[in-house]
């Protein structure tokens, strides 16, 4: 295990990624860590990743067994049918570092995993959600914090975004998401 103290969820995440790779489970880093990667640094101390795994009994058992064999303590929580997040596996170490693996997010297609970008972090290869998927997800989540992340990312990377792809992704999350995207793009085009 890489973590040696509190505040090292990023290192716990690297260990969890190792286990996911061994289990051949595709993943993409999302949340505050992806925001930092795309230029918006904020203080949330847990690490989030989405994984490509249906929350059925076989897949989940394989994941939980794999994590246990790799030495992780994990808990599994399933959302009800109306929950936009199908299930979450929470992994915690002795230093209170936490990693959340989210699965089956409503509106999210499996292509998210093939569009994830590879980067080097602390000597390991990581996969971070693609910028267009990141923005579309954040707009769908829709809280003030999420929309601030989008604004920040647009300020850093507006000219590097594949706008047709972004609009297509936002549309999959519904008409409101698309409307919100248009308004954020307009605001940040003007300011940029």
């Amino acid at each position: 295990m890489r973590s040696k103290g509190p505040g090292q969820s990023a290192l716990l995440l690297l260990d969890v990624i190792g286990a996911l790779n061994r289990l051949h489970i595709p993943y993409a880093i999302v949340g505050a860590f992806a925001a930092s990667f795309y230029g918006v640094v904020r203080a949330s101390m847990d690490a989030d990743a989405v994984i490509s795994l249906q929350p059925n009994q076989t897949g989940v058992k394989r994941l939980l067994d794999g994590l246990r064999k790799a030495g992780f303590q994990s808990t599994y929580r399933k959302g009800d049918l109306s929950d936009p997040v199908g299930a979450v596996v929470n992994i915690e170490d002795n230093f209170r570092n936490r990693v959340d693996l989210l699965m089956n997010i409503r509106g999210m297609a499996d292509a998210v995993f093939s569009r994830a970008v590879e980067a080097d972090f602390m000597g390991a290869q990581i996969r971070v959600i693609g910028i267009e998927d990141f923005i579309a997800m954040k707009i769908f989540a829709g809280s003030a914090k999420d929309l601030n992340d989008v604004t920040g990312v647009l300020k850093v990377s507006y000219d590097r975004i594949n706008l047709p792809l972004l609009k297509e992704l936002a549309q999959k999350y519904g008409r409101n998401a698309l409307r919100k995207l248009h308004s954020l793009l307009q605001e940040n085009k003007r300011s940029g």
Partner: protein
Amino acid sequence: MKKSEVLHKDHDEMIALYKRMKPEERLVAFFNHSQLIHRLYQAGVGYRLRTLPPSNEKPLKKR
């Protein structure tokens, strides 16, 4: 979107976790976290410089 109950419970657990820490522990945690997030931010800058059109963006000075 409708708020996720599973994520809401998860968030509550996180808050409870940090409440159980002493202030000094929280400070150490935040210090460690900031260093790692800085490395992740730098990884993102490196990625943008490596793969995308050039811009005026410069990596932050290494501390």
